[in-house]
């Protein structure tokens, strides 16, 4: 009788799973360990001199497929720290309402000014809660930052990689240097 045999086997499977350890993460109490490359939210960062990195070039605003970034740039002016002439963003808004976390803004940023954080934004009671204003973005800098930076991604995607030794990235940011893109040799089983 196929029925009897199969029935007992099925009982066996469910019984086996009954004694397996549940894979549940008890969420509010326990947080799952996420991947190293996890991308969750955004932050704007300062450079080593304590100056805002964003120069208001609007590349991210332009490439965003969902068009959630809006930037107001100021004309070039002299930096109070370095004395060089550079641009600034006077307003930077990233609207998480429609963000698809595609990472393209990080990818195109020439200054590594916008980077990803590893912490999710909390759910909100209204749509406005989900708008990352400039203040919020700069506040996010203090959260755990992800490795994603424009320079790191560029380095990873460089078409010439592996063919000639690339010069060490001169302007590697601390964030990028800390979590540099893994070298392709590391994961190669011989």
């Amino acid at each position, binding site marked *: 009788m196929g029925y009897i045999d199969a029935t007992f086997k099925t009982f066996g499977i469910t019984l086996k799973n009954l004694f397996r350890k549940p894979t549940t993460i*008890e969420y509010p109490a326990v947080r799952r360990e996420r991947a190293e490359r996890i991308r969750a939210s955004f932050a704007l960062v300062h450079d080593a001199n304590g100056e805002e990195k964003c120069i208001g070039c609007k590349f991210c605003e332009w490439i965003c497929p969902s*068009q959630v970034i809006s930037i107001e740039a100021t004309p070039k002016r002299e930096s109070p720290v370095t004395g060089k002439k550079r641009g600034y963003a006077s307003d930077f*808004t990233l609207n998480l309402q429609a*963000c698809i976390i595609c990472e393209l803004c990080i990818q195109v940023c020439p200054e590594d000014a916008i980077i990803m954080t590893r912490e999710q934004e909390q*759910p909100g009671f209204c749509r406005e809660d989900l708008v990352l204003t400039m203040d919020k973005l700069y506040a996010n800098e203090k959260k755990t930052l992800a490795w994603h930076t424009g320079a790191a991604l*560029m380095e990873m995607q*460089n078409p010439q990689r592996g063919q*000639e030794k690339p*010069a060490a990235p001169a*302007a590697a940011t601390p964030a990028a240097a800390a979590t540099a893109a893994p070298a392709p040799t590391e994961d190669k089983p011989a």
Partner: protein
Amino acid sequence: MAVNESDRSFDHPLYETLERFPGLDLATTAVDKVLTWGANNSQWIFPMATSCCGIEFMAAAASLVDLDRMGSITRGSPRQSDLMVVAGTITVKMAPRVKRLWDQMPEPKWCIAMGSCAISGDFYRDIYSVIPGIDVAIPVDVYIPGCPPNPEQLMAGMLRLQEKVNLKRAGLWSPPETRPETGKTIEPAIKRLLQAGRDERITAAQLDQAMSLMLPAVDLPPRPEPEPEPTAEADAGTTEAPAAPATPDGGHHE
């Protein structure tokens, strides 16, 4: 948004009954506490799972996060649900159905907009067939950002909803004000995508400016340095003159 929070007020007849009898009205506070606790901890979900977020919703109900831990099970019938989780894009064709199902749910009921599509319509929000956010049709209590949000985020949203229910039942809830300074970004339209050029605001001059603003510090490993992108042309290309390919052959062969 189109749907107002204040449209929804519901007092269970139980309260009325309790208040009618002298002496028993004192019990309302205690009863209220119990009922709030019950409502918070037994939210049966009606999954309005239309697209990608629906899969993450399923993942949240599955063993990783297990919404059953907080007493939430999914019901197929709106009549037995307390919480509608709108997970996915709602189209013009679907919206009347969502509204109807929402109306079929008995009070007290709540709604969670899960993911960008349900919050604002995501990048589809300007497309002829997608409604720009589910709060156009039904009132939303909690918005969970992400595309799609992780299962944990959904649980966080449900915990957030419990906060809201507690505040509301205690009479401490004040609806969030619209803040004008951020309001402008809530504009549910991708103006730049729509106009003839993809971005009116980025003119050739601005692009030049952007290029000049770029510091040479970004030190890419040596690669065939592209000539600074032909900015003028790139910009001109975005003006939608149906010029080149407008003939069926595209003008590139024959």
